[in-house]
């Protein structure tokens, strides 16, 4: 195994298990939030939702690398653990430990992103020289539980008295490593030493501008630009050589970019309103009341007999029909008019009809009596047992060659070149994807539905593979970007897309 557990330099919650791949990457790797780590060639961070993953890497030779470690939970690790098989190329190191297929359905899709980080057999490590700096991770807001005590609510997650070493916390903004508190935060939180990080630390997603991942898990129906692709979502859909259609979401990327707005109102003094009122009252009395008195519409309402006529007509009609007389009279008229009354009446004489029927009944009764007396029904039954024949074939031996191919599996990673942005600044996103299987994948489409606060910079997209780029309006003030590969993506092949967005 090329993996080893490594305790990161930031103090992390014990619930996180970090598996670090030691390929050609050596350097600082830590789990934590944004600026909680300080070290040489400090590059960036990527974190999964709910704090499941943050990876930060640097190379000692000054080579900029970014590493994304998909660290699963330990719940079912033993069931799917697969040995790692490093695959190296000239420029990129790529380690993929498992090709766990994930069929996206309407039921399990909502947890796709989380599951992708939690899947026990999925330990994927990218070591790819990049030019971009990964941005702040997106964190899901954690709501205070109802049972949280007032003390917990009032706890300062990052406070510490002056002179004390700054603590690091499981989530939320943290101090740089080695920083010393200036006493401004939590100085009144009581006693010497730093107060513990609150168990119910809270993150605030409204201060971050996120793109990528699966924002609102729900039913997704391909193609990508159809329903189900929410804003912020970034995914790749493709088909394996077996024809299985798959969808993979990227990691979310969040940039700290709060935007402020204001609502305002002005209210005057009451004295001024009282002084101005006479003018307004005069206008009202002069216009509106006079119009109401001579309004011709009002006269029409008073002499509206049409409504009465309608009601009378409806009630009279209901009375006649309700009694049922009309129906009988009309039907008799029709009989008289259409049928020849004399002929029909003579043929359908009730006397003849009754007599004939009674005779038939009598005959039937007599016949039945004779039949039931002499022809007593006999019932016979037989039981025949069924025989079953079973055959069991056991293979004496199996000769063949085990197929060593692995179906195509795409992994997509999204990064941003900055971790914070103001309104009006440009963020460059990089989407990297790789086929981790040995077989090619087909009909590869990468789609990114930009969040409303990101505007695509026209002509800024680039790609190192042959793609067909389409930009469409997403109906929410932004765009849906999609790249369709013009040829299948071979096994172990990679690709990179970049585009720029304007923060608004």
């Amino acid at each position: 195994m090329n993996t080893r557990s490594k305790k990161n330099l930031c103090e992390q919650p014990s619930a996180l298990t970090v598996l670090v791949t030691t390929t050609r990457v050596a350097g600082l790797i830590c789990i934590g939030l944004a600026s909680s780590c300080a070290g040489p060639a400090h590059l960036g961070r990527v974190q999964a939702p709910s704090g499941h993953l943050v990876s930060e890497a640097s190379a000692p030779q000054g080579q900029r690398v970014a590493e994304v470690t998909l660290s699963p939970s330990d719940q079912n690790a033993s069931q799917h653990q697969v040995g790692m098989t490093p695959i190296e190329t000239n420029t990129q190191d790529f380690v993929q430990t498992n090709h766990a297929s994930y069929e996206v359905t309407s039921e399990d899709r909502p947890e796709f992103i989380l599951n992708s980080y939690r899947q026990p057999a999925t330990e994927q490590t990218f070591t790819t020289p990049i030019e971009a700096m990964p941005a702040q991770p997106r964190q899901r807001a954690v709501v205070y539980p109802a049972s949280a005590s007032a003390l917990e609510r009032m706890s300062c997650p990052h406070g510490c008295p002056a002179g004390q070493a700054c603590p690091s916390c499981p989530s939320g903004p943290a101090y740089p490593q080695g920083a010393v508190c200036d006493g401004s935060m939590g100085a009144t939180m009581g006693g010497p030493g730093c107060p513990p990080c609150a168990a119910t630390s809270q993150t605030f997603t409204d201060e971050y501008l996120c793109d990528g991942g699966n924002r609102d898990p729900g039913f997704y129906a391909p193609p990508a630009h159809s329903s189900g692709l929410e804003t912020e979502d970034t995914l790749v859909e493709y088909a394996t050589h077996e024809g299985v259609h798959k969808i993979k979401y990227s990691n979310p990327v969040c940039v700290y970019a709060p935007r402020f707005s204001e609502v305002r109102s002005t209210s005057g003094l009451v004295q001024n309103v009282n002084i101005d009122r006479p003018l307004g009252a005069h206008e009202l009395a002069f216009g509106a009341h006079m119009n109401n008195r001579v309004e011709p519409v009002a006269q029409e309402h008073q002499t509206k007999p049409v409504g009465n006529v309608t009601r009378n007509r409806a009630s009279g009609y209901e009375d006649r029909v309700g009694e049922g007389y009309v129906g009988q009279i009309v039907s008799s008229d029709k009989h008289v008019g259409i049928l020849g009354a004399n002929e029909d009446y003579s043929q359908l004489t009730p006397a003849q009809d009754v007599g004939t029927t009674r005779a038939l009944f009598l005959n039937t009764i007599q016949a039945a009596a004779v039949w039931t007396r002499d022809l007593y029904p006999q019932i016979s039954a037989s039981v025949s047992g069924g025989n079953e024949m079973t055959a069991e074939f056991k293979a004496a031996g199996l000769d063949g060659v085990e197929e060593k191919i692995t179906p195509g599996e795409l992994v997509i990673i999204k990064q941003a070149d900055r971790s914070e942005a103001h309104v009006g600044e440009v963020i460059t996103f990089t989407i990297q994807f790789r086929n981790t299987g040995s077989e090619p994948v087909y009909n590869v489409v990468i789609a990114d539905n930009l969040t409303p606060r990101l505007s695509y910079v026209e002509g800024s997209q680039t790609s190192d593979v042959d793609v067909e780029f389409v930009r469409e309006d997403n109906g929410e003030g932004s765009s849906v970007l999609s790249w369709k590969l013009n040829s299948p993506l071979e096994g172990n092949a990679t690709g990179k897309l970049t585009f720029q967005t304007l923060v608004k």
Partner: protein
Amino acid sequence: MAGQSLKWMNTMAIRTASLMAMIIVMSQSASAQMPQRGYQPLHHMASPGTAGLWAERLGRACPGYWQTIELTTLEGGSVSYYDEASSAINTVSGAKVELQVAAVYRLKLSDLPDYPGVELYPTIEVIDRLHPPAHLKHEFPIPIVVTEADIEAALRDELVTKVIYLDQPEIAATVAPYDGGMRSETLPSYRNLLAEADERGRPLLIFRMGRRVPSLHDQQRFLTSGGPVRLVESQDVMLPELSQSR
């Protein structure tokens, strides 16, 4: 009779079930048509400090947390922040200061270029905080932009109230902000600005500005704020030499 009674009971049961189903459907459709307005117990016209008190009780910020503020008057001029000891920290438009959440601060706007001799004394009530990474604490202050229209309204003896809120990214309006860098929306005075801001995002700050000036016998109390003020040391604007006065 028994059969008729049973039939009548069945009929009534069916009618009752139909009526209940109709009521449920109508109530659901009615609720679906109702706007999703959460209940906002606070009003911007409440006494200054009320919203801050609620923010403190709700634990919106740690005690002693300093929130960076940046007040800009489009007209330029001087901005003085009074602390709890009535001491003024004199800055200029666009300077960043740090205030504490839940406190009401008194300010003085003066030296306005187009309004010679005019002094305005607005208040700032911080009701929530930001949570930036530590190194970005001063890079993203809560902005307050005082426009010419605000000054004109105050000089007409009107009370200008602003609630600064943080846009919710998913529902953020996509219109471009105006030159001041912040989108402003003027609402009728009977609307609850805190509720309106709460629908659009997260209310952070209440800014009130009228034409009231301190009287001679009330100057000490008038110019006393509810918390300390701290000037951000490294910032882009040129601060006056005498940054603190009485």
